[in-house]
């Protein structure tokens, strides 16, 4: 018994194959989803992968957010289906208002690619239950528009409700407010983060660590045990 994890390909999505591979390595059945199809092919969860959908033109994620597949995903996410947005996927989730806040250009104005330390602040979401609260993990970070911003009230609310899911450790690579690397919705089924757990699932490639596999094993356990 396994679960079907869908990964959406928008025009310009780059890390879809990586996310499919990560789902497979975790033991799930990976399913490709296409931006023009409303049909989610009976998947149990969806990953919006990284990349530059629509070239990041207008604003990162702004055009993808209106694609047919997103109509279904927004509807299902509101009904509780787990959705993980990585990097560009996180940007799409904020543009779609499934998660609060927005992503702006890095404060140093450069693309940055590095091995990034994170602290797992919330180990109770659908995507983080295989971690323990406070656990430190290292996964690649690579983005141009990664500076998380929201108004003070929203930030306070996120903090108070434990919805800051990940925080940058050692250095804040993009000027994100309160070192926020990722957040969750109140229900814990929709999670978005800038760093790339799908690039840290095999000892040989990427950073050489497997700290990112937990996202995919977390969701699998949750779905299989459900």
């Amino acid at each position: 018994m396994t679960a079907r994890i869908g990964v959406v390909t928008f025009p310009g999505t780059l890390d879809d194959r990586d996310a499919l591979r990560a789902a497979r390595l975790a033991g799930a059945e990976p399913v490709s989803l296409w931006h023009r199809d409303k049909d989610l092919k009976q998947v149990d969860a969806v990953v919006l992968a990284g990349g530059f959908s629509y070239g990041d033109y207008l604003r990162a994620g702004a055009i993808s957010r209106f694609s047919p597949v997103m109509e279904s995903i927004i509807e299902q996410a509101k009904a509780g289906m787990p959705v993980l947005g990585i990097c560009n996927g996180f940007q799409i989730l904020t543009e779609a208002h499934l998660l609060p806040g927005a992503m702006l250009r890095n404060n140093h104005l450069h693309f940055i690619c590095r091995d990034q330390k994170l602290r797992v602040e919330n180990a109770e979401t659908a995507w983080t239950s295989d971690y323990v609260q406070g656990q430190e993990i290292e996964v690649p970070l690579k983005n141009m528009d990664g500076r998380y911003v929201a108004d003070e009230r929203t930030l306070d609310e996120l903090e108070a409700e434990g919805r800051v899911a990940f925080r940058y450790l050692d250095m804040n690579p993009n000027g994100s407010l309160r070192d926020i690397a990722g957040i969750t919705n109140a229900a814990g089924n929709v999670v978005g983060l800038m760093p790339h757990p799908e690039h840290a699932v095999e000892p040989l490639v990427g950073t050489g660590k497997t700290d990112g596999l937990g996202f995919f094993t977390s969701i699998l356990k949750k779905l299989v045990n459900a």
Partner: protein
Amino acid sequence: MARVVVDVMLKPEILDPQGQAVQRALPRLGFAGIADVRQGKRFELEVEGPVDDAALARIHEMAETFLANTVIEDFIVKVES
């Protein structure tokens, strides 16, 4: 304080991938009838002192050397009230 606006646009003959991507997305969102979209930058400058010819000349120079890349971009300087 007076405000001077500098609008910077890609020159008409230069490809604007951003504008094209936006234009192609419009019909899908139900906005018909837009033949072309070009995207630019707007700078709002709060000027200390009077906006006289000398000040405008300085702003012009600033736009030409710094705000716009005149290899690929044009600019317009406008005085707002």
